[in-house]
């Protein structure tokens, strides 16, 4: 910057202003494709969705908030609300716990072997969720369930994994935890590595045991990354589609539907686009609150721009 202004100072203030103007013109031009994607394919559809949700099924008449009022009267809709919240909170809790324990365990073994273990445990995250869920579907298959076969070896009666409400809800959470825990693992492992070794040495000199080191050094140092990953994962889990769609298709009796799968059922499969748009819009307030909190955490990079 200094160099540019110095060379330009010789030719006068006018060309400096022109240079600055050109710089910002170039910058805006470089951002045009990005703006097209963000405005045309995210912002516009989001607003358009609000408009869509106020039409009747044939999309010929403006009906105001009728679609929303209709949903409020449906018991199924409230079940979807409860199930989405339960699913997101329970799944994220276990993903974070398992991810944290696994990351901590990997971090205790000699550095030489860590890569290998980390590589193995990332596999569920790498396989597209829709495809690995097919494997789980087969594992839960009523007649041939390989998990029930194992349980039978220990004289435990067969579990109706996908056909009873409780177990179906349990199963979709299990698959989601299996798929998502590696993401937490990798985030926490990176965060663990960035904690300065001196802090642990100082704690050890002060006579701290392993538990105290965890509570008073590791957790405070990781507070920020734990907050971001948990909030981010709540968004992704809350908006999940793949796993429920492949594993239960929302059944039995709509008990495992999430907002996304229910919106798909109503909007695409039943052809009631406005009603589907209304369902998916209910995700928006929750996501907006979470996004606001995350944004406060990551503002540092934005301020750097």
């Amino acid at each position, binding site marked *: *910057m200094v*160099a*540019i202004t110095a060379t330009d100072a010789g030719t006068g203030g006018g060309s400096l202003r022109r240079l600055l103007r050109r*710089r*910002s013109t170039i*910058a*805006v031009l*470089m951002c045009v494709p*990005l703006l097209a994607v*963000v405005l045309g*394919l995210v912002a516009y559809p989001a607003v358009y*969705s609000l408009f*869509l949700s106020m039409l009747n099924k044939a999309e010929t008449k403006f009906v105001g908030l009728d679609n929303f009022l209709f949903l409020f009267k449906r018991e199924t809709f409230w079940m979807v609300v409860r199930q989405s919240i339960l699913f997101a909170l329970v799944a994220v809790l276990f993903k974070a716990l398992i991810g944290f324990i*696994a990351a901590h*365990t*990997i971090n205790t*073994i*000699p*550095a030489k072997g860590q*890569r290998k*273990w980390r*590589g*193995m*445990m990332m*596999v569920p995250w*790498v396989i*597209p969720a*829709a*495809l*690995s869920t*097919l*494997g789980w579907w*087969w*594992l839960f298959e009523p007649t*041939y369930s*390989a998990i029930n076969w194992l349980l039978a070896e220990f004289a435990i009666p067969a579990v109706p994994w996908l056909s009873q409400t409780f177990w179906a809800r349990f199963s979709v959470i299990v698959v989601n935890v299996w798929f998502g825990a590696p*993401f937490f693992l*990798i985030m926490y492992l990176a965060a663990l*590595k*960035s904690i300065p070794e001196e802090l642990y040495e100082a704690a050890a000199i002060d006579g701290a045991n392993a538990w105290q080191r965890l509570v008073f050094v590791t957790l405070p140092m990781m507070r920020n*990354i734990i907050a971001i*990953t948990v909030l*981010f994962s709540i*968004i992704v889990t809350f*908006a*999940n*589609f*793949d796993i429920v769609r*492949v594993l239960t298709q929302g059944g039995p009796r709509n008990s495992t539907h999430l907002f*996304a799968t229910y*919106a*798909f059922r109503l909007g695409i499969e039943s052809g009631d*686009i406005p009603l589907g748009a209304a369902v*998916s*819009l209910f995700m928006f307030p929750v*996501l907006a609150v979470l996004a606001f909190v995350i944004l406060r*955490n990551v503002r540092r990079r*934005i*301020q750097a*721009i």
Partner: protein
Amino acid sequence: MAIAAEARAAGRWLGRTASLSRDRRWALIASYACLVVFAIMFLFPPYYMLVTSLKTNAEIAALTTNPWIIEQGITFEHYWGLLAESSFPIYFKNTVIVAVLVVAITMVISVLAAYALSRLKFWGSGVLATGIFLTYLVPDSLLFIPLFKVVGSLGLLNSYWALVLVYPTLTVPFCTWIMIGYFASIPKELDEAALIDGANHMQMLWRVFIPVALPGLVAAAIFAFTVSWAAFIYPMAYLYSDDQLVLTVGTVTTLIRGDVFHWGGLMSGALLAAAPPVILYAFLMDYYIAGLTSGATKG
């Protein structure tokens, strides 16, 4: 590195105190036992898929055998059937076309924008950066219904070109975000030197930024590739005919039909469809992980 050095130092120190070294050994054994449990937990579903895909139909259908091992010999018939007698190769071709195009589009859009945002401050650049981050947080399940109408009005329903159009909404925000991080870490002296040498912004981006930030570019490209390979709700909503489907939806919807003992074909289809991202990950694990973690930890 610090951990290796620390482990060596700890080893020397522990060598002198026998009881502590015993404690340390037990702690290590407990850690490894724990890791084995985790590894089994994370790997048994793909293992079971592999076992099923290699079994004969007769063995899959038998209720008397141990389902976790192959007792009656390995067969590749499910894989051959998939490649020779199903639409699987068409899905594969469609997925490759979509993924490659989306990666190319994403990289052009995000590299240009990240350069502008990290180096050329302009009016509104802070707002735009915030906007990109917010866009990254918008899930596809919120947008698939209005985009259904957009795709329909463009005449792209039931065409994989619809995916080329909408997938950038999944990839561009995150890739721009991590490229901003990589570009911002390039020392300012480097571009000042290039500017003095008379380079314009495009030359500087091409000759300085892209070569220096190449690891970041690879990480972003891997991210864009895996996301467009795995995306599910958009193709599920927009595609239905056999010649347009992509792997995720094709495997889930069309291979499920058929006779009773279709499990071998289904599992081999799922494994083959998952193979490209898994292989990419196996060879480029460090880039993959750098891409994932740099989005948040360097924030």
